[in-house]
């Protein structure tokens, strides 16, 4: 693929970004036009001329980028690196798509990144957790080995250092969002500030965040255990002749007892009274034999239900204790806010 095609591709990458903010400066637009026409000398002359004019930060970054691409196209790699350094210093988050950028320009851009100290891609995770039981993930990339200090500023917190390390490349830290005394950080807007220092050089990037506090969800009490249901505490025994049999036995015992206990001197005992009541009992026994038996207590089921109730009760006590604890806790929600500017 011809070099110019690569360059065109690289420039086309810029276009979506330009969509958000457009270039107003006429000189820069002419430089861009010259670059598009592969007139590198004209593009370089106009690009450098535009840098001497009053430009917005965005326009200045675009001008340096155009100069960098032009130098890359002219094989002036060192000058391209210098131009890209300026781009990164103005827009530390600037990235080139490796699939659409010429290898020379990409290489010059990467070299530029290693020659300056910047904090890039500072990200704070959007997260929600119970105070003291979680942490906020913070990530950034530092382009040169340096002492990096991460702080949280703002609100009633003042400035609290949460990490200090010598790092190069990507760094991941976790912040528990707690005050020095252990309490959760109060609700409010804060800034996560990352300061990198190496010798006389330093760079600082920040990410605003909002912390809100809320009540921790409590657990509902249980009325049943999943998979376990109460069993009927009574059961109907199978039909039997037992009621009639026992009615006969009771009546027989009463009548036989009457006969046996009767005093012989008084003549044969009267069975009329006992017979009448006994007859009624036998009749009742017969009817009860034909009827559906009365439900009887199912001891196994009663014991099972008792154990189940005990389990549910015990679990509810635990839930009540857990809820008491949760009502004393705070749910922290951390949300990153849009950044207003780059690092410095």
């Amino acid at each position: 693929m011809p070099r110019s095609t690569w360059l065109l591709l690289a420039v086309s990458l810029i276009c979506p970004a330009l969509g958000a903010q457009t270039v107003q400066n006429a000189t820069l637009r002419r430089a861009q036009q010259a670059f598009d026409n592969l007139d590198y000398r004209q593009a370089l002359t106009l690009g450098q001329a535009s840098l001497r004019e009053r430009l917005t930060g965005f326009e200045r970054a675009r001008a340096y980028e155009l100069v960098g691409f032009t130098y890359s196209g002219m094989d002036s790699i060192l000058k391209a690196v210098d131009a890209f350094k300026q781009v990164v210093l103005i827009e530390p988050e600037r990235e080139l798509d490796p699939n659409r950028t010429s290898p020379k320009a990409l290489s010059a851009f990467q070299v530029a990144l290693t020659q300056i100290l910047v904090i890039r891609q500072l990200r704070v995770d959007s997260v929600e957790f119970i105070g003291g039981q979680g942490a906020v993930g913070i990530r950034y990339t530092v382009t040169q080995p340096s002492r990096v200090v991460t702080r949280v500023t703002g609100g009633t917190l003042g400035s609290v250092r949460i990490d200090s390390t010598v790092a190069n490349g990507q760094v991941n830290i976790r912040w528990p969002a707690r005050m020095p005394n252990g309490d959760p950080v109060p609700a409010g807007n804060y800034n996560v500030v990352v300061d990198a220092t190496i010798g006389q050089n330093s760079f600082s990037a920040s990410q605003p965040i909002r912390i809100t506090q809320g009540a921790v969800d409590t657990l509902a009490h249980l009325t049943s255990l999943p998979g376990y249901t109460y069993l009927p505490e009574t059961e109907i025994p199978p039909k039997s002749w037992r009621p009639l049999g026992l009615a006969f036995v009771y009546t027989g015992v009463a009548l036989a007892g009457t006969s046996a206990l009767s005093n012989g001197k008084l003549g044969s005992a009267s069975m009329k009274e006992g017979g009448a009541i006994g007859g009624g009992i036998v009749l009742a026994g017969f009817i009860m034999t034909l009827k559906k038996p009365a439900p009887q207590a199912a001891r196994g089921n009663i014991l099972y239900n008792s154990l189940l109730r005990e389990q549910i009760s015990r679990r509810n006590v635990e839930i009540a204790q857990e809820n008491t604890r949760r009502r004393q806790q705070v749910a922290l929600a951390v949300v990153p806010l849009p950044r207003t500017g780059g690092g410095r």
Partner: protein
Amino acid sequence: MNGRRLGGLAVGAWGVLLTAQPLNRLAAQHVSIGPQIAFGDYREVSSDLHYTGGGIGAQATVEWKKFSADVVLTKVKYKPVTGAAATTEFDASEVDVRLRYYIAGPVSGEVGFINRKADPEFEAQSVGAVTAGARMAYLLGPGVRMALHGGMMFGAKYSGGGTTAGFGALQLGLGLTVDALKGRMRLTGDYGFQRFSRETDDGSGALPAPIQQSLGRIGLAIAF
């Protein structure tokens, strides 16, 4: 007569006990009370003094935890049976009080007393005694219970004098209760047999003068 005095005092005491309960406690216990029709057979000394008759009665039952108590009042007009030597009818008024304690299974132990008064006084023996025995109950079906009870009667006193040997006075009973109207009403049927092996001594030696009664009662009771 000592037995009569004892009976009257005891009935009074039971009455106070049953009615002096606060209403909220009554709600926690089972009480039933109702009228009965009584019919009986009474014999004394020999088969010649044989009476049968009918009358009315009332029964009250209280159940509380493992305790239960029955108070039964009956009044039977006994008439001599055809062919018997006796010629005069008499009224037998009886009070039967039993206090029961559930022991285990179908078995309960019970103590109490009976007092039967004859009127006219000299037509039959008035008698009073302390009772002790056991009761077996069985649930025939939903709301239908039967019970068999038996025991001894101690310290029997007779209006005409006489004594009873230690185990000479016995009683036996059979009972049935059927709940109706969701337990608000009870049909009751009871049978009671008493035998006193009474002996008298007019100076010529002990003479047997046994007393025996079979009494059946059928009635209704309101339960609450």
